[in-house]
């Protein structure tokens, strides 16, 4: 489910306050947002909670969107901010004994659907830096083109290209550090 290209006329109508256009736009954006939240949020973030918060921000801030053509990057920026907030909150809760959500149980729906392998990939992704995680999710998991990713992240395409290489290196380093099972690690080596 790859959001975008958005219907510019629909974005314009939503920005102008047309409720029907706004609801259509949200219905189209939600699957993509939910996937971003599940893939970028890591094991401690409840993806459905985060996706809900992203859509609420979109509903209340759509009138401030300057250029309808940039709806995709704008939506990704909101998702990024909301996820950063959720991750911060989880980290803050971990300060207080007894309040911390314990590992993978935070989002039971999503976790139930993850196999052991999926959970290990999620942990490895969670351990790399935010910018590397974004690149890996957008390019290697969602299979977007470098041009698309450069537009989504508002970065020059050269920066995206160099980041892809470093992100994969970082992921492999983490895979080694986390001691992913040999079979998984071999698959990584073969594939890369």
């Amino acid at each position, binding site marked *: *489910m790859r959001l975008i290209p958005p219907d510019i006329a629909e974005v314009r109508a939503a920005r102008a*306050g047309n*409720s029907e256009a706004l*609801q259509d736009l949200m*219905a189209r954006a*939600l*699957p*993509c947002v*939910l*996937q971003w939240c*599940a*893939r970028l949020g890591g094991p401690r973030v409840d*993806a*459905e909670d985060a*996706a*809900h918060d992203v*859509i*609420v921000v979109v*509903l209340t801030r759509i009138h401030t969107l*300057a*250029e309808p*053509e940039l709806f995709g990057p704008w939506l990704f*920026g909101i998702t*990024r*901010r*909301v996820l*950063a*907030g959720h991750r911060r909150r989880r980290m803050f809760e971990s*300060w*207080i*004994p*007894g*309040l911390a959500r314990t590992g993978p149980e935070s989002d039971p*729906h*999503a976790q139930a*659907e*993850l*196999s052991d*392998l*999926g959970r290990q*990939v*999620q942990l490895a992704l969670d351990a790399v*830096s*935010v*910018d590397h995680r*974004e690149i*890996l999710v957008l390019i*290697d*998991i*969602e299979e977007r083109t470098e041009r698309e990713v450069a537009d989504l992240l*508002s970065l*020059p395409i050269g920066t995206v290209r160099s980041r892809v290489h470093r992100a*994969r290196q970082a*992921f*492999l380093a983490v895979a080694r550090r986390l001691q992913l099972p040999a079979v*998984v690690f071999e*698959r*990584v080596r073969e*594939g*890369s």
Partner: protein
Amino acid sequence: MKHLFRTFAEETRARPEALSRVESRLEHVVADRALVQSLLTELPAAPAGAEARIRARLAERTGRSVNWGLRAGGVAVVAMAAALLLWLRAPVAPLTEALRAEAWRTEQPTAHVSLTYLGEGDLAGTAMQPRIEWRSGTVQVEVDPNQGVALTVQTREARVRVIGTGFSVGRSALGTAVRVSHGRVSVDCEDGTSVLLGAGEHQLCLPTSAAGLLGRARALAEQGAAPEDVLAAAERGLAAEPDAAVRGELEVAQMEAYAADQRWTEAYDLAGRALASGGGARAEELRHLHAWYGVQAHGCEAATAELRALNAAGEATAFEQVTLAGCVSASEPAVARGLLQAALVAGVPDAQRPAIQQQLDALGGQ
């Protein structure tokens, strides 16, 4: 690597049941919004003729405020413009207009130029050579092709030149973004980069001064950008020889980016170095950050002394008291009890009170 990522992609695909759960939670938000909109439509319309009356009043005021000197000056300008027009046998209308809009606004200052903008700047130059000094926000420009109109948009970071095209220039703390919808545009960035953009292409001209880069680092952090991008802006700012105040702020932006990226050791070391050199205006805040980064980077060992000092000075927050209590609970249970009780008095969020009370009970306190 592909197999791994394919498995993960498949397992994290947005499933219909998850989508319907989020959609049902969003229903009340949409319903509330619809209710507000329906209530707003109940507002009475403006009385007939109100707009005309206001315009008439404004016209009256404007008329009164123009003095004879200005009128004479205006006549002289018009006469000079007319003379120039005759001399050049070409349209050279001087343009002077303040562009300011808090909601999107469209206007056509000359026959061949159309502007749509949100933000502020100034329009100057002539009809054939309009010049826009753009300060903040976004301006979208349409210039009719093949009419000889040479338009420029100047911002602090960039100069955009165009003959017959459509493009937009957006300026914010992040820098100046130029995006071309059709035609070709030449962009000269302040950092020396010069590019020729075609339809669909865009260019971001970054600030080059230390203060400008501090603004970019803060704006990036605020919009949740990747920590690496915030760090890049802060590091470029530090390389631009900032004064002491800007240096201090750039270092704080740098350590917050490290923390956002969970690079606690680097954040802790940087906060320590900043404190060792006095800490400037942020010295007090830096002590709290140093303690927090210390706990995250190295655990209690690195932070206990700092937390004790903050607590002794009466400056520890409730969270710092709870953390210090956790660090000393084994060796000094009475001190830990006192700290937890003080935290409860100082005020912690309601959701966290039961957990703290539980800790107190475990320590044998009230």
